């Protein structure tokens, strides 16, 4: 509970600080519009509108993520400050609730890797929630289709335009590092792919548009545009008297578009949560490991675990089996040197075979001068070592 209050105080701090005031205003507006729009959607009884308005909910989650990443950044700043203070008076382990996480103390902190991972979870949660929401809408729209109720078209235009405006404002005016990163790094959604494919063929005929159309489009903005088009055509067709089928169809389409947009992002952040090696890093890591395995004294690597802590931070642990006569600190330093550029948080476990038995022979090994080292051939276990 203490932690959550500290989170709350942090949020209040954000509210007070000047740089996030615009965010707060946007949040409140979004909240209000969200309520209005959902009321309208409930009145209109149209599933397509409801599907589109669920973008508002996503906006709230988006803003939440933005606040969280701002909070994390703030925390990191205080951490640096605290570190400076700490170097002066190291004994002063001020228990400063949340910020104390970052002070290297001799106590166990709740989140030993810091709060950077919160961002990932926030992104995953918000994308997953909108996926599940789309799924729920899918089911609801089928049920609605069976029920066959009257749809009031008069609300459609107004609320969809409101949603559109607020969504665009949120996407373009709220600074959100976490989502920016995910949007840039995750694979493109099918919507993006198709649109870029179409734009490419358009640019084939009208080359002048290439600067406008060819860059990668923000998938969230694209979702909003397509959704608006769908809701408009839906309301047009409903006014023409085409009945429920149109509404069901357009809500299904909306749901599938939401799926398509959110799934790549959810997969990207979910993979980080599952502690996996990011695919783009594999090549670089392999190269480093290969180099490191050629170092003097290194026999083999075991238990290589490299995984992404958060967006852009790689954590690794590695067991290195080294030759019995090798200087462990030297091996450690060399392997560290190779890997530290790629892996930000690294732990290298250096071990030797049969080190207990070796100690009985220590006195017989005068040639190294170092009692720790040994190269008793009888304990080589078949490993041929050429130095």
């Amino acid at each position, binding site marked *: 509970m203490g932690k959550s209050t500290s989170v709350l105080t942090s949020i209040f701090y954000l509210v007070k600080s000047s740089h996030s005031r615009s965010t707060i205003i946007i949040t409140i507006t979004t909240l209000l519009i969200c309520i209005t729009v959902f009321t309208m959607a409930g009145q209109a009884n149209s599933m397509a509108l409801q599907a589109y308005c669920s973008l508002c909910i996503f906006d709230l989650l988006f803003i939440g993520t933005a606040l969280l990443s701002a909070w994390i950044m703030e925390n990191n700043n205080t951490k640096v400050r605290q570190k400076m203070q700490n170097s002066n008076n190291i004994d002063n382990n001020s228990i400063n609730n949340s910020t104390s996480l970052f002070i290297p103390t001799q106590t166990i902190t709740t989140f030993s890797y810091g709060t950077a991972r919160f961002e990932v979870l926030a992104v995953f949660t918000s994308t997953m929630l909108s996926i599940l929401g789309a799924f*729920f809408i899918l089911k609801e729209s089928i049920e609605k289709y069976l029920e066959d109720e009257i749809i009031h078209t008069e609300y459609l235009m107004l609320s969809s335009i409101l949603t559109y405006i607020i969504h665009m404002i949120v996407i373009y005016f709220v600074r959100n590092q976490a989502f920016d990163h995910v949007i840039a790094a995750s694979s493109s959604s099918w919507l993006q792919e198709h649109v870029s494919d179409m734009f490419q063929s358009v640019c084939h005929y009208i080359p002048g548009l290439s600067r406008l159309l060819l860059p990668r489009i923000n998938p969230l903005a694209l979702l909003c545009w397509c959704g608006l088009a769908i809701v408009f055509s839906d309301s047009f067709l409903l006014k023409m008297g085409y009945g429920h089928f149109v509404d069901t169809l357009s809500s299904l389409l909306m749901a599938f578009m939401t799926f398509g947009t959110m799934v790549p992002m959810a997969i990207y952040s979910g993979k980080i949560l599952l502690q996996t090696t990011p695919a783009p890093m594999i090549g670089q890591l392999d190269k480093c490991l290969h180099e490191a395995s050629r170092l003097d004294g290194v026999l083999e690597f075991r238990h290589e675990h490299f995984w992404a802590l958060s967006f852009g931070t790689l954590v690794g642990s590695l067991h290195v089996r080294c030759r019995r006569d090798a200087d462990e*600190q030297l091996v450690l330093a060399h392997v560290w040197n190779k890997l530290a550029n790629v892996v930000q948080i690294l732990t290298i476990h250096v071990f030797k075979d049969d080190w207990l038995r070796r100690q009985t022979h220590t006195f017989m090994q005068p040639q190294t001068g170092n009692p720790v080292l040994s190269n008793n051939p009888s304990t080589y276990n078949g490993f041929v070592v050429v130095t």
Partner: protein
Amino acid sequence: MFDTDVFSKTSKTRPVSDVLHIIILLIIIKLLKTFGLFITYDLLKSYHVVLILFLTTLFTSICLLFIQKPFSSFRPNKILIYRLIKYTICLTIIRLLWLFGLTLCGPLRTILLYEHSDIVIIACFQALFSSSSIGPQGQTSRIRGVVFFILAVLAIFAFDNDDSRQNIDHPEGHLHHRFFAHIFYQLTSLIGVADHKGGVILLLIALFFRCGLNSWSKKLVIDVGGQKKFYAITTCLSTICLIPMSFIILLFNNLFPDSIDSIRSTFQTTISTTITSSLFDNISSLIIPIILITLFLFILDFYVEQLAIIKLDRIRTFRYGTLTMIFSSFIISFIWVKTIRITSNNIWFGRMMQIEEHELSGGVVFAVIMFAFATDLLISPIKQRSGAFIGYNQEGVPLFNLTHQKSQSLLLILKSSLRDILAESDSRRIFYFLCINLMFTFVELLYGAWTNSLGLLSDGFHMLFDCTALVVGLYAALMSRWKPTRVFSYGYGRVEVLSGFVNGLFLVVVAFFVFYEAIGRLFEPPEINTNRLLFVSVAGFAVNMIGIFSFSHAHAHAHGGGGGGGSCPMSQPTPTKEQHHHGHSHDHSHSHSHGSSSHDHEHSHGSNEKSSHHGHSHALTDNANMRGVFLHVLADTLGSVGVIISSLLIQYFGWNISDPICSLFISIMIFLSVIPFLKESAMTLLLQTPSNIQYEILDRILKLDQVQSYSDEHFWNLSSSLTVGTIHIQIANDGDEQRVTAQVQTILKEAQIQNVAIQVEKQAFFNHLNGLNSALGQLASSQRTFSHR
């Protein structure tokens, strides 16, 4: 494969200027064909399908016999003739379907649906079913083409309000094909679609049949000796086929002239024109259009298309042909409808036009555009179809991997995954429950469809929706047993945690929507039809109880908890009509975590007590995945209980307003009860240091011989059972690393931490790093230990 040879020919396309005359010829012929189809349609209004087909094929075969002389050099053997006859029968059936579809849908829609080349259809199927074979770039445009195609068909099927016609000539529209029509109407009314929609279905069936037949008959064509000869022979054979049929039809028409006349007379009252005469009076007016049709549809078209295929290539032929036909038919039908409007009782070829026509509608215009796009996208050749580049061989020649992903048979995959599922108790339990649930759902859906009950149907969909949570859980349980890979270096154990988290989010979404709906209903409580609701909810409750029992045995804690007698209430509201939302209720189960204070409305009900007991017992499982699934099932169960209670309430007291209030209450309960679970799994995902790692453990490490300090200690739960950790330890210069490592390892092992990495650092390490100019940034904390002394 069919289209490989087609697309390979594209490399030698000739420039347009060389073959311009052929293109123009093709376009003209296609225009004529369109025109011919319109004439056919008019003819079909007055004559029977079989008769028209018979006459046209008769004329065609006479013409072809003279032009082609197919039997002059034809040496038949028994097998070949047998195959030819089979082909001919199929062909005739397809043509009959096509013409019958024409009578139902009108010429424009027929052209839109039927005049697609085989390439388009096969490309459709390929894009849908074999995704791996084509490169990503081609694939997107193909998929778009398929989507356009489907949209176009859908537009014709659903958005084309061709209703005016149906009002007039519904049950037995075209009088001459009574027999067919009657059966067909029976059929369509059984499915419940309007007859023009039935025509759409017929045309699509005919189209797919034609494609299948054409690719099947490829070898036959070669055996017979050329496309033209084949065409001539099959046409002749088809004429022979049609002789008996058309005689039967004629006989029928002569046997029951009265009925025809009676129908016709009723018909005329709507049409307000006269002209009824016996069939043979207008033979002369029949002959001319028939000859025209024969020429346009069957002879000229065929020959020009053959020519164009040779001179141009298949793709271009089909592209120009199809596009011409689509657009020309669009324009012609526009004019056609207009002329009919102006001269509504104009006599065309001696026959009456009917006023009610297949008019243009928004759906058709949309379909025209979509079909044009789809044809263009699907028919355009795929750029490269190469295999994956592997490398160079010894001579320096590049090697390609042409084998696509080896596709195992579906059966084998199913079998092996079934074995995996049944191998462990968790997944087995989920699987059995999923099976029961699905069975119940299908029974419900079937029964709902049978009795035409909306409540049952939507409840069935709801159950299906709930099953997805089980599927997620099942898949996660299966996945968590996979071996670690390069990317998933810790194994797949975390998948369970993640799936538990997702299931928790699922419940949050459910709670939100129930809340939202309840608020909407609070202001205007709907009338609820409790009819049959009770039965369904009791059945659902029974099914979910099975689930609860089976999952509860998974956990060692038996059901003991004391929900006590009359707690639990949650009269779960039946939302709209009669579906109950399972899945929202779910309260006590988790409330133990908040102390079971929260439920106190009383309507004590015997059955709930049980569920509350279970709730208490199960929250203690360690497997997040199973817990998530269990939560979901529990929510469902309590949902059914709620429906039982609320339907009883409404039935006996008529408190409709109680329904949304309970809904609100329940959604809040769900939300509150999911939160602890959600928080717990989120903490695991966030790599929270487990609470059982005590300070004293690290203290023991610190007290070890030679150890000066430690830093970068990270411990986290990998999955529910496995704890992992890394730690850096700074020791004195004369310490022995291996000894310290072993000691620390023992300490951590005692603390149930299995997978540890210990980095032992001395001052020498930092000196080395300084020498190597390495990045020291992240080591700041551990280095401090040394620098401070």
